[in-house]
C-alpha cells in the first residue's frame, strides 16, 4: 500500500502545476461553503449575544436595523438623532433606567461612544488598568483599541475630524485616556468611551475658549450686546480639557435638545417594559422603542435566506467543478494509457492500477483537506474580525 502512495506521490510531484490546480479546486470546493458556515455561525453568535443582552432600545423612527447596529455594535450606519429630552422622558417615567448613547465621531478609526457610567455596569465591563471616567475630556478605551494604538492610562488620543475639508466644522479634541477596559470579546473592545457631554464637546456643542474679559486684542469682539458676545475666529478655542480650563467649558442652548443616537432602556421588570413599549406604539411619536433581539432575528432571517441561495449556487458550481475534475482525471488516465499498458505487460493487475489512481486521489484529497482545515482554522480564528468588517463596517 505504501508503495502505491509512493508511486502516486512521485506522479503528482512530477506534474506539479496540474496537482496544484486540482488541490486548489478541491480545497475551494470544500472550504467555501464551510467557511461561509463558520462565518455565519460566528455572526449569528455575536449578533444574538449582544442583542439578547440589550432589552430595549429607544431611537428615532426609521430603520430599526440602523438603530440597533449603531447602538449595539457601533456600526457606521447612523440613525436619525433623538434629543436628550427623549432620555429624560424615560427617566421621568420611573419604569426604566435610561442609558444614553451618542456614537458619531471616531478617534484614529475607532468609534467614540458617548454614554454614562451606567453603561459600564449594564454591560458588566471591568477596568483592567486605570480608573473610571470622572471628568470632562476623559476617555476609557476598549482592550483592542489600547492594544492596537498602544494606549495606556495617561496617554492622549485625538478625536478625528469628520472631514478635513470642513474648516468651520468640528475640531479635534485631545482626549485623556484614564483607563483601559478588560477584554469582553464584544464591540466594546473596539470603542473609545467618553461621557456623553464629552461627545458633545467633540461635536462643538459644548466648548471652552479664552476668557473674553482678559482679551489683549479688542478686534476679537465682533458684536457685543447685553448678555451676548459674538467673537471672531481669533478667539483661542481649547482643544484639550484640563483642570485649568475646564471651568471655561459651557453649553450653548438647552442641553435637553442635545443629540443622542439611542437610549438603552433597562426596564425595571417585564411589566414596565411592556408599559413603555405601549407608549411608543403611538403613531404620532417621533421615537420607536425596539426589541434588539427581534430586529437581529429579522436580519439573520434575511442572512440565512441569502445563505440558502448561496448554498444552491455553491452546490451547482461545486457539481460543475466535480464534473470538470472527473473529466480532467479521465483525460489524464487516457493520456496515461501507454504507461498503464506497460504496467499491465510487466505483470501489474487492474486492481493495482486502480489502487495507484486511488492513491493519487487520496493524496489530492488529503492535501485539500489539510489546506481546507488550515483555511477554516484561519477563518475561525479571525471570524470575529471578519464578521465585524462584514456587518458593522
Amino acid at each position, binding site marked *: 500500500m505504501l508503495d502505491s502512495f509512493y508511486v502516486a506521490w512521485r506522479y503528482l510531484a512530477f506534474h506539479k502545476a496540474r496537482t496544484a490546480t486540482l488541490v486548489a479546486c478541491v480545497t475551494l470546493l470544500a472550504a467555501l461553503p464551510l467557511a461561509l458556515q463558520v462565518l455565519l455561525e460566528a455572526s449569528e453568535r455575536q449578533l444574538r449575544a449582544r442583542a439578547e443582552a440589550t432589552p430595549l432600545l429607544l431611537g428615532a423612527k426609521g430603520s430599526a436595523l440602523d438603530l440597533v447596529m449603531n447602538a449595539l455594535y457601533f456600526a457606521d450606519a447612523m440613525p436619525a438623532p433623538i434629543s436628550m429630552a427623549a432620555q429624560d422622558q424615560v427617566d421621568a417615567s420611573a419604569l426604566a433606567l435610561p442609558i444614553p448613547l451618542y456614537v458619531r465621531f471616531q478617534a484614529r478609526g475607532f468609534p467614540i461612544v458617548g454614554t454614562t457610567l451606567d453603561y459600564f455596569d449594564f454591560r458588566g465591563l471591568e477596568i483592567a488598568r486605570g480608573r473610571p471616567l470622572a471628568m470632562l475630556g476623559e476617555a476609557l478605551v476598549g482592550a483592542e483599541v489600547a492594544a492596537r494604538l498602544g494606549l495606556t492610562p495617561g496617554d492622549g488620543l485625538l478625536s478625528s475630524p469628520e472631514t478635513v475639508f470642513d474648516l468651520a466644522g468640528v475640531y479635534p479634541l485631545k482626549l485623556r485616556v484614564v483607563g483601559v477596559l478588560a477584554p469582553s470579546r464584544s464591540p466594546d473592545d473596539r470603542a473609545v468611551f467618553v461621557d456623553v457631554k464629552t461627545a458633545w464637546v467633540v461635536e462643538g456643542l459644548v466648548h471652552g475658549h479664552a476668557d473674553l474679559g482678559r482679551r489683549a486684542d479688542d478686534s476679537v469682539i465682533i458684536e457685543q450686546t447685553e448678555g451676548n458676545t459674538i467673537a471672531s475666529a481669533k478667539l483661542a478655542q481649547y482643544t484639550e480639557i484640563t483642570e485649568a480650563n475646564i471651568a471655561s467649558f459651557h453649553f450653548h442652548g438647552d442641553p435637553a435638545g442635545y443629540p443622542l443616537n439611542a437610549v438603552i432602556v433597562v426596564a425595571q421588570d417585564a411589566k414596565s417594559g411592556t408599559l413603555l413599549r405601549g407608549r411608543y406604539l403611538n403613531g404620532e411619536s417621533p421615537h420607536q422603542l425596539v426589541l434588539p433581539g427581534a430586529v437581529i432575528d429579522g436580519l439573520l432571517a434575511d442572512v440565512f435566506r441569502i445563505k440558502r441561495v448561496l448554498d444552491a449556487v455553491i452546490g451547482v458550481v461545486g457539481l460543475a467543478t466535480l464534473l470538470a475534475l472527473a473529466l480532467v482525471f479521465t483525460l489524464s488516465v487516457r493520456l496515461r494509457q501507454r*504507461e498503464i499498458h506497460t504496467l499491465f*505487460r510487466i*505483470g501489474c493487475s487492474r486492481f493495482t492500477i486502480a489502487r495507484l489512481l486511488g492513491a493519487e486521489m487520496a493524496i489530492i484529497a488529503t492535501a485539500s483537506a489539510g489546506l481546507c482545515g488550515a483555511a477554516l482554522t484561519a477563518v475561525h480564528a479571525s471570524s470575529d474580525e471578519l464578521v465585524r468588517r462584514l456587518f458593522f463596517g
Partner: protein
Amino acid sequence: MIRIEALEFSYPDASLKLRVKSFQIATGEKLALIGPSGSGKTTLLNLVAGILLPQRGRIQCQDVEVSSLGDRQRRDFRIRSIGFVFQDFQLIEYLHVLDNILHPYRITGALRLTPQVRERARTLAAQMGMGDKLHRPVDRLSHGEQQRVAICRALLPSPALVLADEATGNLDPCNKGLILDLLFASVADQGATLLAVTHDHDLLPRFDRVVDIAEGQSRS
C-alpha cells in the same frame, strides 16, 4: 526450456492468424525472431508471456504451462519469470532511474522490495554504466541510457526468460551493438533465455539461433 506445440491464435477482427506447429528454445539460448511487419512476432512474445491466450495449443515455459494458468497466476508468472524490454523503452517518465528499475517491485505483491533488492538494483545499474545516474529523471537520459535502464528493470527480478521486442530499434548503430552486448552479458550472467524480435539483420550473427516466423524456418 520453452516449448510451443500446435499453437493457434487469431485476433477477434481476424487481422492476424498465427499458427506454430512446434517450437522450442533451450535454457540459456539467445534466439532472434525475425519476419515482416504483421507476421505475428510481437503477438508470439505476448503469448509466451501469458498476456494473450491461444485459442489452441500449449505454451510451456520452464515447467509451467502458461496457457493453462488463471489471470492472477499468469500475472505472477510474468512478473517473476519474464523480463520485458521494449523498443521505445516504456520507462515511467515521472520516476527517476532507480525508481524505474525498482518499479516492478512496487506494483505487484508477487515481489518484495527488500534492502537486498535495492542493493542488487544499484549493482545492476552500475554494471550497465548507470551507477552515477540513479537519481536522474529518465527524460534527461539519452536513448541508449534509457534502454539500459529498461534492461535493468527487466533483469532485476532475475527472470528465467527475457523477451526483447525490437530492443535496439530506436538506437543509433553505435549504441545498438553496445546495448546488445550488455543485454547478452546480463542474460548470460543470470543464466536466462533470450527471445528477441528484431528487424536488424546486422545483429543476427550475434544470436545463437534465428527463426523466421513467416517461413517457420530456423538457422543457427
